[in-house]
């Protein structure tokens, strides 16, 4: 089933007096449960595309349909609701709330949803279990290593069991061991929860795990290939 559909989409940014075209006439379709990477050199438009899929930004031309909703037609409130319920975000810089503990950071994503305290507690503990951090629930982000921080961020993105997780360079600040660990966790969740994962990355370590690689260059899709790597087959 198609979960993301992008048709003839162009994104232009105003720069100075003119405009800069970051994405040019992109067509793309991603099905539910895919494990996709957007790869390409710096400035090729990966983040821009991810932001539009995440309804954090809107296309200048064309359409982006995410879970049957046209991103450009959503009001602020509607797009917030879409993100709150269906989308999980993972950032290169983790973006944890510094004043909250690990537990509270993960719980935060659920506080906006109507959920009983017991159900919430269970969900948070489950999510921390997936990423192997149940022993750090009382720690503050400042006390965590980079790998641990990113795992908290994954737990936060996953705790609400979103349909899509969007991850922008999730391993860029991590060493290879942590990167592998993170990727394995995501692959496992992708498998168990049928969550669709879309990455933006130029990290070779990540490529090995991808089952589909969409290559961008200069705002255009230049290749879209299915991968049969060892790692991705393992799961």
């Amino acid at each position: 089933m198609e979960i993301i559909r992008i048709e003839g989409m162009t994104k232009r940014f105003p720069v100075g007096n003119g405009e800069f075209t970051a994405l040019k006439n992109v067509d793309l379709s991603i099905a539910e449960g895919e494990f996709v990477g957007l790869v390409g050199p710096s400035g090729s438009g990966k983040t821009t595309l991810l932001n539009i899929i995440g309804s954090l930004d809107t296309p200048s031309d064309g359409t982006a349909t995410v879970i049957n909703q046209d991103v450009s037609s959503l009001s602020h409130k509607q797009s917030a609701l879409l993100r709150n319920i269906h989308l999980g975000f993972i950032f290169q810089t983790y973006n944890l709330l510094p004043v909250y503990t690990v537990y509270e950071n993960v719980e935060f994503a659920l506080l906006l949803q109507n959920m009983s305290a017991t159900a919430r507690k269970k969900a948070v503990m489950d999510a921390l279990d997936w990423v192997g951090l149940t022993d750090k629930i009382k720690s503050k982000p400042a006390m965590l290593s980079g790998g641990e921080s990113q795992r908290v961020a994954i737990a936060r993105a996953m705790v609400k069991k979103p349909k899509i997780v969007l991850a922008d360079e999730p391993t860029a600040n991590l060493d290879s061991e942590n990167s592998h660990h993170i990727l394995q966790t995501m692959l496992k969740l992708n498998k168990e929860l049928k969550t669709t994962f879309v990455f933006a990355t130029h990290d070779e370590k990540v490529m090995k795990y991808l089952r589909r690689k969409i290559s961008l260059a200069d705002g255009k899709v230049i290749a879209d290939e299915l991968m049969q790597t060892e790692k991705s087959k393992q799961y």
Partner: protein
Amino acid sequence: MLAIKLAFKNLMGAGLRTWLNVIVLSLAFVLIIFYNGLMDGWNRQARNDTQDWEIGNGQFWHPDYDKFDPYTIEESNEVISDEIQTLIEEDKVTPLLIRQITIYPQGRLMSARLKGVDPNQEIIKLPSADIRNSQNKYAAIIGEGMANATKLKVGDQVLMRWRDKNGTFDAHEIEIVSIFNCNVPQVENGTIYMDIEVVQEMANLHNQATMLVTSRDYENTKLEGWEFKDLNFLLAEFDKIIESKKGGGMVLQSILLLLALLAVFDTQVLSIFRRQKEIGTYMALGLTRTRIVGIFTVEGAAHSILAAIVGAIYGIPLFIYLSKVGIYYGNIAKASGLTIAETLYPYYSVGLIITSIIIVVVSATIVSYLPARKISKMSPTQALKGKIQ
């Protein structure tokens, strides 16, 4: 709930900066409550003293009497009717007969006011019984301030000259039999008290009075031939003084409050600027912008809640101490020419405290909201990048 929890965690996380803001804000709190409490305490005390010494529960004036016009005094007399005589005997009212006179202390000429008072009255605090206890028919009592102004001491004789109702001059030595201490200036300034019957005889105004002072429990406001002046009228001047003092105090309080609010505002601007990525993260997590504005507004406003708590910690003991021990004004009180006791006891009403809390919390909320509004114009992607200037 979410916003409140987050606000307090963020504030605690901000450490020193938060506490500096909170302390300045709490100073504003405490100053506002202290000063207004002092004024309210003064007001209450002064009203009470003025009632005790001068006006009881109001005065009945002769319709022509005007306290600012000495010429009306000579004409403003009324016969004390049987009905009023009964009230006097029941200790409900006491008559005063007021005359313009001249005295010659140390050979100097000085015009003054002679008030005839019933030596047996117990309605005003004036020690009128001292007049009764003297053998001298021309026994007089004066206040300390008047004694200082005239250099008269107990036992001194001084020449007094007056006119009777027909304008005929007469003169006699009067004797100061006691000097009283009173913190209501208008009761003693330029005033000499003598037995009302003697004054009536001197002025040839038998059984007449200029005004009747009511006792504190007397409620009636109508007496045939007399005009009732209620407390609001009689204390209007004093109320004005209190208002202007409060107004004067407001300048300092406002400046301090403004400084504190400026600090909160500055903290807000800075924190919104520095925490763009966090704001972007909230957006990505699905919080609406309104909600994020709310979170930041609550966070700024929470300074005022902390300030109320911190202010309470050092303010309440201070206020309790001051309202027990009072603030000694001593000679300043006398010199001021205002109705003010030597020791002032501040009075902190629930109304005052609630009003101050509302003022500080509302103003802190406004200065927190103003910079937070900017968030609703942020684009999520720009916020996440942290590139908004």
